[in-house]
């Protein structure tokens, strides 16, 4: 419950909603327009109109024709006193009924006083008049008693200058004006409530959204923390797996080399399989470890002066056995000059080997895999995500390493996704080509850590081109 003792019901809730506020007359009208409306009414019917708000403050005041007659009344002491008293009463009398009330002036003129209500609440009053009733033909005789020196003839002359109005006509006119004002007030109230509610509901919706944002942000922080813990866990487990696996591979190798005595051919085949599968497993674990380091933000570049051509050649050597098995044609182009770059050699080597390995894997027998290393000056294709820098020319110089194959190609809608972790173009359980889906994700992270970009273009059944761009700013100037 809200309790108040003052004029306003929301005294105890100054910041409360518009729904709990009691408006003032002045809040509901545009005062200039309201005055214009009542002025035209006053001019049309030839009667004065005054409007007072609940506190008795005058908002509108138009007089009509009665000024001189009333001036005469005001020129004599006793009539002046009576006039002042009557005006005060008209301004402040109790108005219990919604119908206008009649007030009689000692001068013979009359008033009508109509209340202004909104939802049954009194907002103010309209005072119509004074007007001259049709039946008033002469100034009342008792004026002489009140002001003996007032000239009757003069009073009569001034009175007849005022246009007489029939009581029935004034009642109809006043009723009409009350209805018009009532409509104006209601429309004003509706506009006020609508505009205030817009503000209030938007403020409330904003608070709701803020609250939701806070909850989401907390949930997000929690998820990030869990993600970090997961990456740490994977990094630790991968590391722990790698140690015994290295021993398995090492001892297999020693067995194969006959360090523990000669092996029969069948035994050699078995140990070779153990070693081969062990190395695949090691590669997988290394990939997972790399990715977990990337995700947990703990991986760092170890930059050293590197000749890219040498690194690329080493990668070619890595994939040579598989390429030969499939009878592929390996082609390579390198720039002249042996320019050195400040790069992480191991990560770059693995990146290029990965692209070459994929190209070999997805190219059918007898196909071609081409490795090209070149200097590039200009705007990279939009797939790279690197915009052209119109202001710093050096930012548009790149070392471009591209691997082209004549393989099965990648559909357009999957070209971007191949760089996401665990993504497989063919994710069916019966897929033809193996792999974890981690390789390209790692390549992208390695290359981007160098400030470079990696992207792919492809044509189905014709082949794909994977490109790495390393900023030339990494170059060491001799």
């Amino acid at each position, binding site marked *: 419950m809200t309790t108040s003792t003052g*004029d306003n*019901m929301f005294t105890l809730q100054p910041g409360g909603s518009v729904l*709990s506020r009691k408006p003032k007359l002045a809040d509901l009208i545009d005062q200039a327009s309201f005055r214009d409306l009542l002025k035209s009414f006053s001019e049309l019917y030839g009667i004065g109109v005054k409007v007072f708000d609940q506190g008795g403050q005058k908002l509108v005041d138009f007089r009509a024709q009665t000024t001189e007659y009333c001036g005469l009344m005001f020129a004599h002491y006793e009539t002046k006193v009576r006039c002042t008293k009557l005006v005060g009463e008209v301004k402040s009398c109790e108005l219990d009924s919604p119908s206008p009330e009649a007030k009689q002036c000692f001068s013979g003129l009359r008033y009508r006083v109509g209340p202004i209500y909104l*939802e049954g609440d009194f907002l103010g009053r309209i005072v119509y008049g004074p007007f001259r009733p049709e039946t008033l033909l002469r100034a009342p005789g008792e004026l002489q008693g009140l002001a003996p020196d007032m000239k009757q003839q003069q009073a009569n002359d001034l009175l007849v200058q005022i246009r007489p109005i029939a009581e029935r006509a004034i009642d109809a006119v006043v009723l009409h004006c009350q209805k018009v004002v009532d409509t104006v007030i209601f429309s004003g109230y509706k506009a006020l409530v609508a505009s205030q*509610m817009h503000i209030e*509901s938007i403020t409330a919706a904003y608070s709701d959204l803020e609250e939701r944002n806070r909850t989401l942000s907390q949930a997000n922080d929690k998820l990030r923390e869990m993600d970090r813990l997961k990456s740490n866990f994977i990094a630790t487990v991968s590391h722990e797996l790698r140690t015994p696996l290295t021993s398995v591979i090492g001892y297999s190798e020693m067995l194969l080399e006959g360090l523990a005595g000669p092996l029969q051919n069948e035994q050699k085949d078995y140990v070779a399989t153990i070693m081969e599968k062990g190395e695949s497993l090691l590669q997988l674990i290394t990939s997972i470890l790399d990715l977990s380091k990337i995700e947990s933000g703990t991986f760092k570049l170890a930059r050293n002066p590197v000749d890219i051509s040498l690194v690329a050649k080493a990668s070619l050597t890595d994939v040579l056995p598989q390429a030969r098995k499939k009878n592929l044609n390996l082609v390579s182009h390198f720039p002249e000059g042996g320019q050195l770059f400040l790069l992480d050699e191991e990560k770059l080597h693995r990146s290029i080997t990965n692209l070459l390995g994929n190209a070999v894997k997805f190219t059918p027998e007898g196909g071609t895999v081409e490795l090209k290393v070149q200097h590039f000056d200009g705007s990279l294709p939009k797939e790279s995500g690197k915009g052209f820098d119109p202001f710093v020319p050096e930012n548009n110089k790149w070392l471009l390493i591209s691997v082209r194959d004549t393989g099965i190609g990648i559909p357009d809608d999957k070209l971007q996704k191949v760089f996401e972790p665990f993504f497989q173009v063919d994710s069916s359980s019966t897929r033809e080509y193996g792999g974890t889906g981690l390789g390209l994700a790692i390549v992208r992270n390695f290359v981007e850590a160098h400030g470079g970009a990696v992207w792919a273009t492809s044509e189905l059944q014709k082949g794909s081109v994977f490109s790495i761009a390393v900023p030339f700013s990494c170059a060491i100037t001799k």
Partner: protein
Amino acid sequence: MQLNVSQREIALKVVFYGPPLSGKTTNLQALHHLLNGQSCGRLMTLDTADDRTLFFDVLPVFFKTSNGFKIKIKLYTVPGQIMHASTRRLVLEGADGIAFIADSQREEAKANNEFWLSLKENLRANKLDENIPIVIQFNKRDMPNVRSDEEIEEVRKKGKELVYGAVAIRGEGVLETVEGLLSQVWEYLDKKHHIEQMVKITREDFLRRVFEGASKPREGLLANP
């Protein structure tokens, strides 16, 4: 309730709550047509171009007691559409009683339930007393595929809220719903704030003053105002 001692005024707030298109505005429109014009103000509707409630509708009902106390009841509807959740909460603020307007059609059972739960949630959010009077109206009793009278009787028996059936578009059950609610509101406020002693009027007199001169429901009540 708002009480202004110096001006001898009491203002009560009643809210029509319920799912979209259950007939909250129709209830208020019917009430506006049925109640006596002397004590019933203009119906203010803040709606969109397609006649959906944007903020609320409000109908004021007011009268003066014989000892000069002014009693005003403001009847509000909330907007039903899901997106206006915050406005619903704003309108509910400071309510003294709630008429939950449910749609009797079977396929609306889920929507009724969701809004019933949201009402309870909003009451908590607005820190309103959990014992605030609530009545339930099953509207659209004239539609096909509605919950049977027996099923509604079951709800009436099992729940603690008063339950009414209605065809608001004809005005049927509208006055009964409001009368049932106002009766409970009066009793509730009297228990809490001794309102009878304050304004010197009994519950029966209060209800008589609100509904005196009310007309009867009729076919086409809202079609031909």
